[in-house]
């Protein structure tokens, strides 16, 4: 169910949840969780089922339990909007996490850095490790391979009989790998890959290289 790949000489495991483990660093990379989105909607009068809130946390727990990483790095848009009570749930979740946690700030991350630091999360605008550049927005920088999120990549797979399947995906293009959005309640941007790109779609169970 896990797809192992190499990027600039380093080993990575792609997980069907959309998370990705950097083997050498034992660092779990997760992008665009958009926590608090459902609570945000409810606060503004849109009655999205509240029970759905738990799912994001359960997914996070499952993938952390699976890899038991030393570090967790969120590639931005961890929280969808301003502070709401879902933060408390996140605080609870953090208490069971022994790994070192950091957040590369994204455009949605408007909650004060102090709040993050108080629960032990280190805030950075970008992260450079070896020859990899970790950002939220996709960015091309010479001599670096970029790992990022923001785009919520998805892929439409077309087949005979006018069939189509739409799925979230990991999208590798040139010196860049864009992670799918981890969050349940988020939309997708449909990519059209070029020759040489790689697309790994994720189902609930598997990661499949389709392009």
């Amino acid at each position, binding site marked *: 169910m896990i797809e192992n790949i190499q990027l600039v000489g380093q080993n990575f495991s792609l997980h069907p949840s959309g998370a990705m483990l950097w083997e050498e660093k034992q660092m779990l990379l997760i992008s665009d969780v958009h926590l608090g*989105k*459902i*609570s*945000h*909607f*409810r*606060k*503004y*009068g*849109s*009655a*999205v*089922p*509240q*029970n*759905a*809130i738990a*799912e994001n946390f359960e997914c996070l727990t499952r993938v952390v339990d699976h890899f038991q990483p030393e570090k967790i790095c969120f590639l931005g848009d961890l929280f*969808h*909007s301003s502070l*709401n*009570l*879902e933060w*408390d*749930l996140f605080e609870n979740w953090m208490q069971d996490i022994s790994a070192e946690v950091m957040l590369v700030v994204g455009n*949605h991350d408007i909650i004060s850095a102090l709040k993050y630091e108080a629960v032990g999360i280190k805030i950075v605008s970008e992260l450079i490790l070896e020859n990899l550049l970790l950002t939220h927005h996709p960015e091309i920088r010479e001599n670096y391979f970029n790992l990022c999120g923001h785009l919520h990549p998805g892929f439409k*797979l*077309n*087949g*005979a*009989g*006018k*069939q*189509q*399947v739409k*799925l979230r995906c990991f999208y590798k293009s040139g010196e860049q790998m864009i992670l799918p959005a981890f969050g*349940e*309640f*988020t*939309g997708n941007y449909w990519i059209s890959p070029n020759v040489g790109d790689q697309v790994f*779609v994720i*189902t*609930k*169970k*598997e990661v*499949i290289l*389709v392009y």
Partner: protein
Amino acid sequence: MNRPQLIKLAESWFEKQDWKPFAFQKQTWKAYLQGKNGLLNAPTGSGKTYALWIPVVLEYIKNNPDYKTKHRQGLKAIWITPLRALSVEIEQAAGRFAEEMGTQLTVGIRTGDTSQKDRAAQKKKMPDLLITTPESLHLLLSSKDYDKTFENLNAIIVDEWHELLGTKRGVQVELGLSRLKTISKNLKIWGISATIGNLQEAREVLLGPGSGSYQNSELIRANLNKKIIVRSIIPEKMEKFPWRGHLGLHLIDEVVPIIRNSKTTLIFTNTRSQCELWFQKLMHKYPEFAGEVAMHHGSINKETRLWVEQAIRNESLKAVVCTSSLDLGVDFAPVETIIQIGGPKGVARFIQRAGRSGHQPGKESVIYFLPTHAIELIEASALQKAVKKTVVEDRIPYLLSFDVLVQYLTSLAVSNGFFPKDIYPEIKSTFCFQGITDEQWKWILNFITKGSQSLQAYDEYKKVEIEENGLFKVNDRGVAMRHRLQIGTIVSDAMLSVKYISGGYIGTIEEWFISKLSPGDAFTFAGKNLELARIKGMQVLVRASKKKNSKVPSWMGGRMGFSAQMSELLRAEMYEARESANSGGGKSRELFALQPIFERQQRESIIPGKDEFLIETFKTREGYHAIFYPFEGRFVHEALSSLLAYRISLLSPISFTLAFNDYGFELLSNQKIDMQQVLDNDLFSPKFLMDDLNNSLNATEMARRKFRDIAVIAGMVFTGFPNKLIKSKHLQANSQLLFSVFRDYEPENLLFLQAFRETFEHQLEEGRLRLALERISNQNIIWKACEKPTPFSFPIITDRLREKLSSEKLEDRIRRMLIQWEK
């Protein structure tokens, strides 16, 4: 003054105009002045405005003997119309009578087009007659102290009730009326409807089943016999007749002489994109029409629409290419001829469109039918018969539309607040909610106050609050503002306004179309070639373009299906076609023209007879096609196709895409369908229909699409608005996602369940489906394995709008697609 004296007053006004009141007008005056409610069945252009506005004025005269010198202010009557385009016409007619009678009564319009300034002025001082839409009525109910506004309301007249009846806007009207019945003393409710199958029911829905208003009501019929002449435009050479293209543009040269020979012609198209293309092509090929031919559809800006309407009235236009935006109301006396492009899908609509021409008494209405593909000629032939027999459809009213109820209750909470014990009996008195249970009512109240059924930890849901005295009230200004912007039941994709960079508003366009363009791309809109410069907020900035290859926006929705009546006529026509094909000559011109096509169909397959059910299979580059021909209309085919696809998919893992039109449906797969197995397993059986349908619904998109509208109407999705700088940042949600979230976490939600119920009741028409299956079970199934697509199959297999259904495991499906890709 007593009643005869009052009526005399009106009659002498008629005399002065050299008119004579129709019997139905006098009947209506009398009934109204007797204090009755009612439904007036009268077609457009028959003088229905005078039938109902006159007694309102007469009542005022009666109650105010000094009406010529004194003006008693305040709202006295509301005229509800489904289309903004109609309001000007009514305003003019009503204003004229009020003035010439020497009253000082004023007439005002309030619709989505009314400016903020005018609204504010109206709020301070309401006109005596307010012409408005169902949405604007609800907006009034959502403003503070609305009860004072409506206190002295004497009359509410719902025009074109047949148009509203089978829609959620009808439910809006029902709810609005239920409130007004309580707060306006001495209220009389009248509806005006064109001929539909269920007029008695229409009256009951309007007035409330078994209510006092209903007991004290009348149904008045105008019975004006008007002759309608239908002529088909038939291409000279059938061989050249294209099978697809869908737009009928190849027949454009046939249309031109018709335009030239008539004072004014309305050319009705079924979609806005078809309208744009026809207009463009006409201008391109016949540039001499410039300035004489115009275009009218719902997305064009108001000024242009009004200009076009006015230009029709003063005879300065030869022709207007339009959509249903000109279907209703407005009397355009100069219109002599109607051209209908493509099947109108329903008899009532066709007759109504025909009625747009030849308004003068004694004149006949002429309508030309222009088929967009060959098989539509059969439709034309069927329509001719339908018009002769006046076979018209029912409009099915909505039941238990909880989404509209949620919206309405929130409106009341936004304005004055409400006490459930006052409102519940009103709700229960409406046709729509006559069957609501106490549990459901409680559920709705919980939903608007808690956002769920029980209080949960970490929840900050905020919408309607319950105050200490039990008043349900919205206190948050943001909630109130967003709610007001969302009032309405017509759901479209997010709309963006189209403007020139240099300034100048052109119209509104669906976001999904623009999202497919990049800056620099050219597209055609409102008859102009435009180039996309950039998108800024909710605005699309454009400049004029000279590029030849421009895209034409296709607007979503608007796909109508045949009614049961129309399908029956069509089948009868088919059987006749078979006879005529066998005997070498048709009875009607249309069938005669189709002879070459029938012959080819018979060579490659068969034309099914009365007791035959045809299935064709063949293979093309696209995959394995199976076409079924029940001739039951689009909606029944949609249901049948997903039912059958579901049942086949139980036999072995397989994925389908489904296409359907009014004649039949297609299952397309990348695997061969074992048709013998389909026949052996009796998959057309009406047994377990509901269970299988339910399962197939889960597998397709139908309920999902219904839910999209429900979510917006109930205020769960905020769509944002063009021209309004509202920050909805972080509140945009994809309704597809929302559907999945409800399915996974709150499947018992009444609004979620409503999506399925609506699919059954309004989309799939379960009753019709059952009848169709029973009919099929008595027919001989004839399976033809064909070499290539047959003439009958062509319009279906080229339809690109498709449903999907799969019983394969997702992972297996992806792998199969990958393997086929590599081949």
